[in-house]
């Protein structure tokens, strides 16, 4: 009742603070890029910008998955582990089983989807709280990926636990996923990231399904009473998230060309951070795919710039944390009076 005429009553000050909230990330982005470009002209050239985009592509893809699970009111903590075990799975598939790219990629994506399905089963059917279910899945996968090789990284000539030597090798076609460029300029992972971003943006913001995914996260009961199947929607979200995480894993594997046991350690935190910074982009205060991608790129631009200015690598996590804290303070702090 008190907000009856809020449209008319909203003062110029409130509108201004909303406008600041909506564009703050972009203003910061421009200021930052200008600053780095002035200090280090090499920062702004196409090769460097493309290498930045390539560096953030995996985080952006995983972040998009996190965004989908946030949209249904859930959370997927297992994505980092899914990506890491996908690196191992892809390597194992090619090096131990001797499969090619056309078998490996679908297999690994299927693996990610399957993990998502198990997550969904735990959360939707057994009603395990999402954080606990996906945390448990994270532990399980982190351990599982070590078992087939007895804890060794996978590269050509790997000695298996039974003493035999693996005969396969990375399919050169598979490596193209991580190492080729379109027109010699745009790296393949950047193209994949762009495709994922466009498809998921349209899915979440412009389709019936997206509306229902958000509706599930907004008010599960209302969504069910409107005739939608909440279990199916949640399952879809976790399957998408798992599949995207394994896609991220494939890109990592194709870039590294080896199954490293330690790969993907920081992927979870980075992609969650991207999704949360995304809340501040456009001032939406909610998960959104566009914001997540911008969030990932933002962090990438910042870290690359700092590296060029010779900031030591060990300050990176601090910088990411500071950006996240700033973005969240901006999202929730500014315009609080308006939200009341």
């Amino acid at each position, binding site marked *: *009742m008190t907000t009856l005429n809020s449209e*008319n009553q909203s003062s110029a000050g409130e509108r201004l603070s909303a406008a600041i909230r909506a564009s703050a990330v972009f203003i910061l982005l421009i200021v930052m890029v200008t600053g780095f470009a002035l200090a280090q002209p090499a920062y702004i050239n196409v090769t460097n910008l493309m290498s930045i985009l390539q560096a953030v592509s995996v985080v952006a893809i995983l972040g998009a998955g996190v965004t989908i699970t946030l949209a249904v009111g859930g959370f997927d903590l297992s994505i980092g582990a899914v990506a890491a075990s996908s690196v191992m799975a892809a390597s194992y598939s090619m090096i131990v089983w001797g499969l090619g790219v056309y078998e490996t990629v679908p297999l690994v994506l299927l693996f990610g989807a399957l993990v998502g399905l198990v997550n969904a089963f735990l959360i939707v059917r057994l009603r395990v709280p999402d954080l606990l279910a996906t945390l448990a899945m994270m532990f399980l996968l982190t351990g599982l990926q070590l078992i087939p090789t007895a804890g060794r990284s996978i590269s050509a000539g790997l000695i298996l636990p039974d003493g035999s030597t693996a005969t396969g090798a990375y399919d050169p076609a598979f490596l193209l996923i991580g190492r080729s460029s379109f027109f010699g300029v745009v790296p393949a992972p950047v193209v994949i990231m762009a495709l994922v971003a466009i498809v998921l943006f349209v899915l979440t913001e412009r389709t019936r399904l997206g509306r229902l995914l958000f509706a599930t996260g907004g*008010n599960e009961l*209302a969504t069910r*009473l409107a*005739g*939608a199947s909440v279990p199916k929607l949640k399952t879809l979200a976790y399957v998408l998230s798992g599949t995207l995480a394994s896609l991220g894993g494939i890109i990592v594997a194709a870039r590294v060309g080896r199954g490293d046991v330690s790969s993907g350690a920081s992927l979870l935190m980075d992609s969650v951070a991207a999704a949360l910074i995304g809340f501040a982009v456009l001032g939406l205060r*909610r998960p959104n795919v566009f914001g997540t991608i911008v969030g990932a790129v933002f962090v990438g631009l910042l870290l690359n710039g700092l590296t060029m200015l010779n900031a030591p690598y060990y300050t990176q996590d601090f910088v990411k944390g500071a950006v996240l804290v700033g973005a969240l303070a901006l999202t929730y702090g500014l315009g609080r009076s308006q*939200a009341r």
Partner: protein
Amino acid sequence: MPLLRIDGLAHAFGPTKALAGASLEIRSGEIVALMGANGAGKSTLVNVLAGTLAPDHGTMTLAGQSYAPRSPAEATDAGVVTVHQSTERVGAPGLTVADALLLQAYADRSAPFFLSRSAVRRKAAAMLDNVGFELPLDRDFAELTAADRQLVAIARALSRRASLLILDEPTASISGRESERLYAILRRLRDEGLAILFISHRIADLNALADRAIVMRGGTVVGEFARPIDFDRAVETMIGRPLRTARPDARVVHGEPVLEMAGVQLVAGSTPFDLKLHPGEVVAVTGVLGAGKSRLLQAIFGTRTLAAGAMRLDGRNYRPTTPADAINAGVFMAGEDRHRTSLMPSDWPGSALAPTISLPHLPKWYPLGFLFGTRERQEAQRAIDTLGIKTSGPYAPMSSLSGGNQQKVILGRWNAEPSRVLLLDEPFQGVDVGARHDIITAIRASTDRATLIATSDPEEALEVADRILIIDHHTLTPALDAQRPAVAIEA
């Protein structure tokens, strides 16, 4: 000299005058019933007394001194204690009854930092002795009945020096026998000199307790009834017109029913009943909290299963197991408490007016799955026009609408597609009188579907329905025609 004197109290929420110059007096050692329809200003008055709302105008005098509490704590300190209707939050699962009693003392640091079990029991027992209640101190709070929770709340409220006790529908969720126990306790407290103000519509409460009844309408006090209270006249004063003309255009519909329920048991062991709904009629089902109103609607909508019995829709077997089944069959439901059952949180996708209307109809309106085109906007505009929704446009956030207009949007959602049966659970919650009139007109405008409305307010049932059913202990008692329902409401 009266204990409490209220003079010309006024409070407005935006353009809505919830209190428009209410004046009344309460003496020590009397029990006063406060009656009034939805939106009459009862809760606003209670909130002002309890210190949660500041009045725009008017004065209050308590025991000869000016009384203007700025917070609930100040009200309590002055001796005015309030027990709200929902008592689940007086304690929490995992706390013992003794803990729940002492919760306030824990919070305001009057209890010592280190607590021994025996000290807690001793203090809690002392609190109960003070008011003469008997409660199992070591029981988990969650295991208490609604009546016992009420007693915990009262005991806690009276643990401070109190001169006025305010109770909001104290018997709404408790059984007859438990009510008797509560009556006896309240009468004893009154005889000890406490003033008690309670909100209730039940004849039983009024007969057993009230020394006086004060009736509110439109934010002012419009009538006072001394013992013995003439309930019919009190209700007439409350709704502002004679009962007999409650719904002069009540329709009597014959012919093939749309929905037929036979031998239905809502819960195992309840008395089976039958129900027929005809096209074009509006049926209200009313009863106290927990009587089974919502359960009946939910069973028809497929979110609860029937313990026994069968349903037929347009002559065909009808056995929905999900809301989707019901909606596909043409049975729509707007649930109780629109914020919980229909709306998205503000700032969330789908929290604007048009998406609120389209949510259940998306598959029909956008068969390809992509939300392109203007169907949603058109449908929203149609609802705005036909229901007279006051809004800045089809994509205005729902949170910018008043309660009445929000409820119109919910009705617009389910009017957007043709239906066979429309189920409305408490459609007038938080709806002002003007909007209520529009909503009733819109509900009654449809001639081909049957509408079943659950409401706990008898006067709302009178206003909207062609036919009124009473539900008690999960069974319908024979239908009464709308001509003579009021006194039987409490049956």
